[in-house]
């Protein structure tokens, strides 16, 4: 609170020339405001906690996982979770094992790793392409705008899952291929959002001021226009992380994503699908993990959107 009142009482309003100073000043209060809003929202706290746990699991997977994810144990095949009242159990395998005797808990932990790697890299790549396209389209207008946005329109005419499946079928399954394909299904949304922000910002006085002072167009784009698109970009990014996790799981589930040998939640569901008549626990865990993760990213997106009060 104290910080905000001083800002309000600041007797000398910063001049246009000292843009950096105001930025640093407002950034400090922004962090504090963000923290306060975060602490006030149980839902957002829960979501960040989920994300935190996932990152810990992903980073330290080899140390946390009780078994190597690919280790097969012939004597311990198809174990049930230890709390199950029917079927064989073994205390060394908390959630049981799959048909090849691999530990479910360990595969879930390694699955978190692959899920986050694919989700973050595809969102960073897709976001980069989309933001660049949006900045160019919005700032330069004319034919650049027309070409980029019609391309985005065309892509948005198809459900992303359909395009993703077709692209993966043509490329063949693989982690790098999957990241590229998911990134390419997402760029259009960034491009649209960033473009509309740029159109709003580019006629504002401070941009005209920068132009009048002789700033080059790239400097204006990256130094003055781009920072103003960050808020809406963060919102899009957290929702598209949720989408990326879904696509990774769905494409892997249908055999066109991460190669089946690598443990991911989608691949585990695909394996579980064949044995649901014997073992109804098998499809439960990966599905719950996907749901909670997607939910967390959606809620973080909601929170960021409310915090910055952006409309998309």
């Amino acid at each position: 609170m104290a910080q905000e009142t001083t800002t309000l009482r600041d007797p000398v309003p910063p001049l246009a020339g000292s843009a950096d100073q105001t930025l640093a000043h407002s950034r400090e209060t922004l962090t504090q405001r963000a923290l306060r809003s975060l602490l006030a929202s149980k839902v957002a706290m829960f979501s960040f906690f989920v994300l935190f746990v996932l990152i810990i699991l992903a980073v330290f997977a080899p140390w946390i996982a009780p078994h190597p994810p690919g280790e097969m144990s012939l004597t311990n095949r198809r174990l049930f979770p230890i709390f199950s009242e029917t079927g064989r159990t073994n205390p060394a395998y908390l959630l049981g094992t799959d048909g090849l005797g691999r530990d479910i808990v360990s595969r879930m932990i390694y699955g978190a790793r692959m899920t986050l790697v694919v989700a973050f890299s595809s969102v960073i790549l897709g976001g980069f392409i989309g933001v660049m396209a949006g900045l160019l389209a919005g700032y330069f207008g004319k034919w650049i705008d027309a070409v980029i946005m019609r391309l985005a329109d065309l892509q948005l005419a198809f459900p992303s899952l359909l395009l993703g499946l077709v692209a993966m079928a043509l490329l063949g399954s693989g982690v790098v291929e999957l990241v590229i394909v998911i990134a390419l299904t997402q760029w259009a949304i960034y491009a649209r959002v960033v473009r509309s922000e740029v159109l709003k910002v580019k006629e504002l006085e401070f941009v005209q001021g920068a132009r009048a002072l002789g700033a080059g167009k790239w400097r204006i784009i990256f130094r003055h226009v781009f920072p103003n698109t960050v808020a809406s970009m963060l919102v899009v990014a957290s929702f598209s992380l949720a989408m990326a996790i879904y696509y990774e799981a769905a494409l892997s589930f249908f055999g066109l994503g991460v190669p089946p040998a690598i443990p991911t939640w989608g691949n585990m569901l695909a394996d579980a699908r064949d044995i649901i008549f014997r073992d109804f626990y098998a499809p439960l865990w990966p599905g719950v993990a996907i749901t909670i993760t997607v939910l967390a990213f959606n809620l973080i997106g909601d929170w960021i959107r409310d915090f910055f009060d952006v409309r998309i």
Partner: protein
Amino acid sequence: MRFILQRMGQGLIVILAALTLAFILMFVIGDPVTMITGAEASRDQAERLREQLGFNRPLVVQYFEFMLGAVQGDFGVSYRHQQPVLPLLWERLSRSAEIAVPALLLALLVSIPAGIVSALRRNSAIDYTARVTALVGQAAPNFWVAIMMIVLFANILGWLPSSGRETDGGLWKQISHMILPIIALALLPMAYLTRMMRSTMLEVINEDYIRTARAKGAPVPRVVYIHALRNAMIPYVTITALQIGNLIAGSMVVESVFAWPGMGRLLMDSIRTLDIPVVAAGLSFVAALFVVLNLIADICYVLLDPRVGKS
């Protein structure tokens, strides 16, 4: 009218572009001959087939032939089913509709009242329940929900069959096969539309004209259903139209899990086996559907909100 015509023109361009995209994806990036013969075929065999099917001609010629055929509805013959693609697609489409139409109706029937009540009784237990359910419903991946429904209702409880489509037998037997796919398909649009209905309704009931209507003493149901709902429906209609596009992605997933012989499953199988003519036709169909739905949404927009289209 001009507005609508303009939109139709734009739509036509999107469809032509989509056909081009389908051509590029399927015939330039992927090589149809290797896909038919497989990697094991000798080079001679492959070349003979290439000549037979006309894939050895210049791409421009192939492109125009593809486009000419596509515009007339001729997408060639399916590699796997050995029959013309378009009739195959139509036949499967009608089976998809058997579950997609009830699913959409179900989503509308639940989401409209749920959204309205949620918005009017903001922060009540009902609102809270509806919001949490919608949030979780949106987060749970549809293929997993479908599997869990099979596990619960078919395996554990044994109430409903787990998969397939029944054509013989009594009415109940036929319907019993449809229930799980319909619900699985409806969940995502239901969750999304409920959130949408709630937020648009919340926006509308805070508008000045609602306060005016209440201030002049109009009865509450009248204010809600005549003044508020009509305006809240404007964004809702557009979004519903776009949700139908997502129903296609949904039916690809749901039909595959429940082994329902519709267009979604046909597309999924064709993609996995690279049955190129079917995939090309499917992509074109989806683009065309998207354009038509957008057009319908635009027309609804004009009908519901007279301000649109006049400016």
